[in-house]
């Protein structure tokens, strides 16, 4: 029953370009929400399930994005080759940085991730020869059409890319789901609850945390590649400290430690401001207040609220 509902929603989303062909703006917003939800899933695995509050998450999305940009534009590599390479690069960078950051805990961990986030952002901003510097990296291509046998799909037009973004999100979501259900995920949740105890029970917590940092960074990098391919331009500002903090905001508002949390968070973060386009400063004020209220009164985020609301309805 639940499965059927999910399948129906997914089918509807895939069919949307055909239904809403006159609504490219809607497709654009949903695609963008997907592209924010992917790094948010990466952060949810770290923050929501393992309890690692990284304040430099988007820097790894940036590593993926710029790696792919350079590979596609300068090395003339195909998107389909650049995507896995960039994802792995972001993951490797996450592993290296994570193994330093994870020597620290709580506040110290946050500050050290913030420090690395700043450093990586400065590299993107300052390394003119490779990243094209602060002015941004224009001319990043959309993926080339894919043809398997008789079936072919092109990703240049909005509708085509929309399906790719959706597929990317589903892949990231499926990975998250697999992680959470696995024994590996069990250890992560144990670490979140009581890291010391998990260690005495026999978990090599450092290894698990580093792995999850690398994994989260790889997911962020994967999202970053799709993001710049969607925008067809990369800009260091998209991977700044402020964006990393916004990512934390997305995960918390959506519901940290819930499978659907990052999706809800990204949708709220992207779609609501688009809806409120008029009131600009005010909408950021509202987001700030919402974040404070959620930490105070609904630490489970919107996903948690929905779940408990649903339980109440069913009762």
């Amino acid at each position, binding site marked *: 029953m639940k499965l059927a509902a999910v399948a129906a929603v997914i089918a509807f989303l895939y069919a949307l370009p055909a239904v809403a062909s006159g609504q490219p703006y809607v497709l654009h917003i949903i695609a963008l929400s997907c592209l924010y939800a992917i790094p948010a899933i990466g952060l949810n695995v770290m923050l929501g399930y393992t309890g690692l*509050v990284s304040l430099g998450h988007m820097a790894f999305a940036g590593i993926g994005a710029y790696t792919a940009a350079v590979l596609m534009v300068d090395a003339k590599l195909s998107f389909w080759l650049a995507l896995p390479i960039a994802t792995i690069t972001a993951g490797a960078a996450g592993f290296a940085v994570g193994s330093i950051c994870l020597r*620290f805990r709580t506040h110290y961990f946050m500050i*050290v991730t913030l420090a690395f986030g700043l450093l990586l952002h400065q590299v993107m901003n300052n390394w003119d020869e490779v990243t094209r510097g602060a002015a941004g990296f224009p001319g990043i291509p959309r993926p080339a059409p894919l043809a398997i046998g008789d079936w072919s799909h092109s990703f240049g037009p909005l509708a085509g890319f929309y399906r790719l973004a959706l597929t990317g999100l589903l892949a990231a979501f499926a990975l998250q789901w697999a992680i959470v259900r696995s024994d590996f995920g069990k250890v992560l949740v144990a670490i979140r609850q009581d890291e010391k105890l998990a260690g005495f029970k026999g978990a090599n917590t450092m290894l698990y945390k580093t792995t999850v940092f690398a994994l989260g960074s790889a997911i962020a990098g994967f999202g970053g590649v799709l993001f710049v391919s969607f925008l067809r331009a990369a800009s260091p500002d998209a991977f700044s400290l402020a964006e990393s903090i916004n990512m934390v*905001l997305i995960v918390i508002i959506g519901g940290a430690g819930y499978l659907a949390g990052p999706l809800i968070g990204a949708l709220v973060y992207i779609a609501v401001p688009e809806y409120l386009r008029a009131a600009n400063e005010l909408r950021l004020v509202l987001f700030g207040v919402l*974040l404070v209220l959620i*930490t*105070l009164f609904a630490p489970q985020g919107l996903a948690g609220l929905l779940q408990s609301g649903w339980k109440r309805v069913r009762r």
Partner: protein
Amino acid sequence: MPEGFLEQVINGLMMGSVYMLVALGMVLIYGVMHVLNFAHGVLFTVGAYVCHLLLTRVTGSYALAVVLSMGVLAVLGIALEHAVFRPLRGNLRSQVIASLGLILAIENTVVWIWGPNALQMRIPATQSIVALGELHFNLHLLVVIGVTFAVVAMLFLFLKTTKLGTAIRATSQSAEAALVVGIPVESVHRFTFALSTALAALGGALLGPLFLVFPTMGDEPLVKGLAAIILGGMGSVPGAVIGALVIGVAEALSTLYFPTDYRDSVAFMVIVLVLIARPQGLFGVRMRGED
């Protein structure tokens, strides 16, 4: 030693003393309540704006405006402590996240009220230039440094000699023990928060005339203040003072040796290295909040 080395040290000490005010406020809160308040930077900004408002609309006296803005911010601090930080006590993660939310809310409220453009705060009395040999300094900068050091001295005296100061130090060592010996921990928390936000306001009000008053003016002092208290060892007041000065000097000196577009990272990488070598910071006794 490259040319200009000494001068850079002086530059660094000056900026370091500005960072100090922010660092002190943060370290007091951290020590007593174990809260890392990321919103401290925007409170600094609000302090500057309130001071500007009081100076131009209410009183013509800069000194009075500074003191009043400290009062206003102290009240705001108490309100925040009561509404946000007290309910989240003991939950580090939520406190940090709530303070990130406060940054968004407060900074954009400032933009909403005062607009995105910078305001100027001119205090004619402190505009002149003081020459020290070949070097020239703006008088207001010397005022800032003088006031900062006076405040630091007063704070130390206060913490060491008064009953309330002793209560603060006791609470920061162990809240439970403080409760046992009859210290009203709740009141100490409230007072510490008020003191800390008043210090933030003082920083903003002092810095406004030297530079400009603008919505993101608190970001830099926040980041540097944060760096300072980590370097000094979280929770150590003398550590914060030294940490702020070290950060200021390291930053200024880094311009002699490193490309300036990596200046911010240089400061932070120094901190990461120090932490790897000495996890408790320069003056910290031990890490708190480990488990």
